[in-house]
């Protein structure tokens, strides 16, 4: 059963609509990632769940209970804030202990639990410090400890890795899932980083301009993004987008790219003659011999080796920029004329006017909009 259920929640400040008809549910012990650009309404949604912001409309259920009359302090949630929100006049120890003092636990129990969570997060040596004496990483771990120490059944994490440096972010990205799954808590995790979203989430809700645009598993969102926008947000380097107008040929659908007719997979919709966007992930493009089928002539402009892969920027004869990605070590072409081919089965087709994904069974994953 679902532990957290958000039912048609809307929020507006005066005329400013921040959330519109948002519905979500999270199974007990699972992690939901709220993903979206800044200003999408993720933080407000989190606050509504926590009970420090009241929704203009809609209901939040925790463990089946309507939260409307329940104050924040009685909801039994733990929350870590993006800006840490540590109490500046209390030591790290007192910060972490604050959920326990609220329960009026005996001092020895508090001590024990604070020490154990601090040890787990490797900050047991700075517990006597005030927040201003802590490094950013230590602050972040203190904030996390404070959220975890009360072992709340529902954890809300508001982009907890946003304000820490890259190294720490990398470490925590590995560490956090282990920490969270060990506790069996239901988690709502807010992030703007698609890798974090993929790594953390059992499910991902993509929020934009106050609406849920897609709600599904990480694979769903990556392989069948509901809109062009989501396709662009998920994936690095960014997905290649080609404006095309498919034609019906003798052998099926095809589209013309740089004078080369590329056969397209069959879709359920009739798209021949309508304006579409063909989206190809950089890893689904490969260098081929000039004589290969459907080889598109390009000029290689630049090559950027990253650790595990090599990114190539190339230009078609028609002047379109395309990005290719290949595993490091795989053969490639560093400059000059070359030919590339599209792995056509892995491409996505979007309607240009609505920017919605065409074909496949994309409707199923658009639960947020269908509701």
């Amino acid at each position: 059963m679902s532990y957290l259920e958000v039912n048609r929640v809307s929020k507006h400040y005066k005329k400013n609509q921040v959330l519109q008809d948002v519905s979500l549910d999270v199974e007990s012990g699972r992690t939901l990632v709220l993903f979206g650009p800044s200003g999408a309404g993720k933080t407000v949604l989190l606050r509504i769940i926590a009970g420090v912001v009241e929704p203009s409309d809609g209901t939040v259920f925790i463990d089946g209970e309507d939260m409307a009359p329940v104050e924040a302090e009685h909801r039994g949630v733990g929350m870590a804030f993006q800006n840490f929100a540590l109490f500046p006049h209390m030591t790290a120890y007192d910060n972490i202990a604050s959920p326990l003092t609220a329960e009026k636990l005996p001092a020895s129990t508090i001590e024990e639990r604070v020490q154990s969570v601090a040890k787990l997060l490797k900050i047991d040596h700075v517990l006597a410090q005030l927040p201003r004496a802590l490094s950013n990483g230590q602050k972040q771990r203190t904030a996390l400890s404070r959220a975890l120490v009360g072992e709340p059944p529902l954890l809300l994490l508001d982009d907890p890795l946003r304000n820490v440096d890259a190294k720490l972010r990398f470490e925590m990205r590995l560490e956090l899932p282990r920490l969270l799954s060990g506790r069996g808590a239901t988690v709502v995790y807010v992030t703007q980083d698609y890798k974090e979203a993929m790594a953390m989430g059992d499910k991902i809700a993509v929020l934009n301009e106050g609406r849920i645009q897609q709600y599904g598993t990480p694979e769903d969102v990556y392989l069948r993004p509901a809109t062009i926008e989501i396709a662009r947000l998920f994936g690095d380097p960014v997905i290649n987008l080609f404006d095309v107008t498919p034609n019906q040929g003798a052998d099926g659908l095809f589209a013309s790219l740089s004078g080369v007719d590329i056969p397209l997979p069959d879709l359920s919709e009739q798209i021949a003659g309508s304006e579409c966007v063909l989206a190809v992930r950089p890893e689904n493009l490969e260098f081929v011999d000039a004589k290969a089928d459907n080889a598109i002539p390009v000029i290689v402009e630049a090559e950027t080796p990253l650790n595990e892969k090599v990114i190539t920027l190339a230009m078609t004869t028609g002047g379109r920029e395309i990005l290719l990605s290949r595993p490091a070590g795989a053969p490639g072409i560093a400059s000059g004329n070359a030919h590339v081919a599209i792995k056509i089965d892995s491409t996505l087709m979007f309607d240009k006017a609505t920017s919605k994904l065409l074909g496949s069974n994309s409707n199923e994953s658009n639960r947020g909009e269908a509701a």
Partner: protein
Amino acid sequence: MQHVSLIERLLRGVALILVVVFFMFPIVWIVLMSFQTNETILRVPPSFIFEPTISNYKALITGKLETSAASLEINFLRNLGNSVLLSVGSVALALLLGVPAAYAFARHKFKGSEDIAFTLLSFRFAPPLLVLLPLSLYFQKIGLADTYIGLIWVYQLICLPLILWIVRGYFEDISPDIENAYRIAGHSWFSTFRKIALPLAGPGIAAAGLLAFIFAWNNFIFALVLASADKQPVTVGALAFVTASGIQYGQIAAAIVLSIAPTLALALYAQRYLVEGLSLGAVKG
């Protein structure tokens, strides 16, 4: 830094000295006067050289003033005591009323909150007599005339807006997330207010209280209208004293020194708080 010529530096130095002399001289002179007998005060030409005496302060403290005609009883210490009572009482009441209200105005933008805040602020700028004169008639009817309670209540006219507006600014500067975090950790709004908001706004509350104390101490018109002799603070008492003691100038000077010493000492002690408070937060000190 730009090059500063010798002449300019000289001129600046002279100007600085003139400024200090103009603003400090009256205080220095009154202090000197308070340690002189009438004899040396009346000397022509006046001189900085004299044999200091504490007889003026002694007379004020014992309450026996020797005038040329007769010995006069005047209880200036009572005025000092009134000043302390009225100022401390007013600030305490203003903090008690103003801090929770400031918190409400800062955290909950409720209906009419801005209107109430502005109404309170506008009292700070309205002519005090407009309220005081009708009030003096009301006070006689309801038995508050010439009582400390009545006076302390009227002093809210200056103390409350000051506390409300300065402290509200400090509350607004606390990130709401810090309070939210404490609520979510399981604490009631009241313990959040006590354990988070109050300590974090502490310096602002202290500054506002200090400033309110100084304004209350220096107030003249409220007690002039509403208090009789035995409830009057030093500001009004000193004026009455001038009339009563006639030409005992040394004692007048000593009374003034005793009256202004507390606020000057507070100002010296906490000057860095004052700047922001004085401008109602228009500049950060």
